[in-house]
């Protein structure tokens, strides 16, 4: 396999920075030392070999390398802005990680390689992304010495997360368990039932479907203030927003799933003189499942976003992640803002993955899983 020339050059840049570049605008410290040099040399070597395993190894090595200047500069603690040595180290190592991960994903599979290698090829590049993003964030904040009040660093967010985890979890409980879960269940079941009614009525298909589709373009969260009046400013009004937001995609997809059928299959059941209930149970419903799951996933994403906007727009008791975000943002406590966003993302990604898992186990027959099937 060929050497990864791009990574090699990036590693050279990093090495150059270690040896020659000043770390900060003031003071004369460099990164020169045994460990950084070792990392850079290791990267050079691994990039030259360029095979799957060395390229894989190069990724964590380079990620650690990219952290070194950040750690050193913040350890200096004289508030000085970074100089070119810092940037050469930082970007050099980051690019090594980037190109090495790219090589891993591109490396050709040889016929009889083990499953572990195959897994590695699929998993390593996506796994690298959050590290690279976090390093870039932290590297820029530290490098330019951005004050916490303008944009917090990763460590600020982490500290905030650790210190106020209890509060954030209470907020999450309000937002997700009370507001989202409640609204989601009602909205989805109502949407499903209405969808069935529409699928079985030509009149409603002609009359209601276009309106329901148009609602996809309506900023429903705008209703939030009105619902705040109707249901009070506590969690009920936000749950109501979730109900409405989830209702329409579920209706649309249910109708599509129940009606977008291969006519041959309908004729087949007709040829068996199946009764409508049998047709529903054995044909329409299973056919609608993939559509339904798409709707559920969409509705889950939408309801999280909407509930947060709803909390912005219905200022009630200061509980819930959305409230926390908007209050903290107003006070300039961005570390709290990001911590809250992190928690909410973590929860919604979990919900999304749960739905995907449920989808896979219930609609594993669906052609979209073909590649994974074997």
């Amino acid at each position, binding site marked *: 396999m060929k050497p990864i020339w791009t990574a090699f050059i990036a590693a050279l840049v990093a090495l150059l920075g270690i040896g020659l570049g000043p770390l900060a605008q003031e003071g004369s410290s460099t990164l020169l030392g045994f460990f950084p040099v070792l990392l850079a040399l290791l990267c050079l070597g691994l990039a030259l070999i360029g095979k799957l395993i060395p390229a894989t190894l190069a990724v964590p090595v380079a990620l650690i390398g990219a952290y070194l200047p950040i750690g050193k500069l913040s350890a200096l603690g004289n508030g000085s802005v970074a100089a070119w040595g810092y940037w050469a180290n930082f970007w050099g190592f980051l690019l090594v990680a980037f190109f090495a*991960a*790219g*090589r891993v*994903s*591109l490396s050709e599979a040889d016929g009889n390689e083990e499953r572990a290698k195959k897994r590695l090829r699929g998993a390593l*590049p*996506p796994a*690298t*992304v*959050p590290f690279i993003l976090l390093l870039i964030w932290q590297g820029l904040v530290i490098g330019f010495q951005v004050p916490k009040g*303008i*944009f917090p660093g990763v460590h600020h967010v982490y500290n905030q997360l650790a210190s106020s985890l209890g509060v954030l979890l209470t907020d999450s409980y309000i937002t997700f368990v009370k507001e989202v879960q409640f609204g989601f269940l009602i909205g989805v079941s109502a949407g499903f039932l209405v969808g069935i009614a529409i699928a079985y009525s030509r*009149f*409603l298909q*002609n*009359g*209601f479907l*276009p*309106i329901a589709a*148009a609602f*996809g*373009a*309506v*900023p429903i*969260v*705008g*209703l939030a*203030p*009105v*619902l*705040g*009046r*109707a*249901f009070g400013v506590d969690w009920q009004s936000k749950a109501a927003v979730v109900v409405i937001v989830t209702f329409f995609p579920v209706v649309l997809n249910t109708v599509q799933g129940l009606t977008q059928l291969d006519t041959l299959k309908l004729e087949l059941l007709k040829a068996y003189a199946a009764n409508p209930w049998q047709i529903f149970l054995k044909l329409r419903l299973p056919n609608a499942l993939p559509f339904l799951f798409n709707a559920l996933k969409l509705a*889950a*994403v939408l309801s*999280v*976003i909407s509930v*947060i*906007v709803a909390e*912005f*727009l219905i200022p009630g008791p200061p509980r819930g*992640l*959305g409230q926390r*975000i*908007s209050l903290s*943002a*107003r006070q*300039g406590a*961005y570390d709290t*803002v*990001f911590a*809250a*966003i992190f928690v*909410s*993302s973590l929860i*919604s*990604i979990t*919900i*999304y993955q749960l739905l995907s898992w449920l989808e896979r186990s219930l609609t594993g027959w669906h052609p979209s899983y073909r590649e994974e099937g074997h």
Partner: protein
Amino acid sequence: MKRFLPILIVLVVLILLGYPLALLFGLPLARRDMKDLRKWEKETISLSDGVALAGQSDGSNTVFTYPRAIVENDDSRTLFVNDSSLIYKAERPEERVDGERADFHFESDHGLVVQDGVLLSDGDYVREQNLIRFRQTPPRNAQLRQYPDYFVQDSERGEVVLGAAPETGARVWTDSYTIYARPACGDTLMACFFSLPQHPVPFPHWIAARVVPFFQKFPLTDERNIVRSTLYTSLGTLSSLALGGAVGIILAVLFVMFRPLERALLPWTIASQTIPIIALVPVLLLVLGNFGITIQTSLLPTAIIGAYICFFPVVVSTVKGLRAIDPLILDLMKSYAAKPLEIFWKVRFPAAVPFFFTGLKLGTAAALVGALVAETESNNRRGLGFQILGQVQSGNVADVWILLIISGLLGVGLVAFVGLLQRLFAPWERV
């Protein structure tokens, strides 16, 4: 015409549905107004020769009842036992109720002891002159009161408890007291419904009646004019779409050209859709503000927020389009020995155009929401978002509904506009 008839019918039904909905949401509020004594009209009854309270003066009974519901804190209320007048006074303890102390001093050395509105019985405390020793330590911040003469136990029933039982045959009477006469909102539930200051869901014809005054509220020269607000918001949304579309295309092309980039990022794009990006609006506004770009003066923050929200569907959809090429056609191009760039321009790109617009359509609603939220965060009095928030704060619910309908129509219109673009740029695709 025939196609629109069912839509029309359903629309009419939906509008008519506004009436029961208005009742559904309004009546509980009306009932609350009607039941809530604090919202009743008060009336002071003065009787020249006085009237007796119900209750037996048998030497042991202390509970007496006014003829009607009485107002609890009432200066004009009188209460006599025979000729001596009783005074309504609540004494506070001299010490702070900190949850640890159980002994409290009061001004008088007699009276009824009440904790959090509940009358305590003699067994609950021991009295030593004006020192009360509670058997059970009152919790922190509990309300302790001593009523030397009498205590209003149940104002709705007009029930009072006297500190000392009147002797047998004594006359307990009043010549003046204030009552809750009737609900201020009206005598019937419907009357209360109609006099609600703000209906969560107004009757549809009330909304309709507001339309003309609403449009005339601000002249065209005022930036709060509805036409100008709508234009401003659509401008914000369209610039979001332009920016988001451009970013989306670039990313999609990068993804397709550099496979590793896609392999690394695609799992995260799906995950990132679950991140409530809209929560970043306040942060983004402030960060941009640090660079001197504020929403007061520039559309850019709105555009960035909207673009950030709407580019994901564009990327996902466009990548799908760039990929979803019939392998036969790719083989055909290969057989012509076409260069990759040619294949891209002649096959992949055109094939992706309809997909791109489909993604953009999906993003439109999101971009509109982004613009509206961004506007609520600004205070330059521009845009529908600001209008909605303003009307909410001033309680013009009918106007909020009109604004919502307008934003809904705007959303539909913008999607239709993108559809028009799609037909323009991808005329071969039957939509």
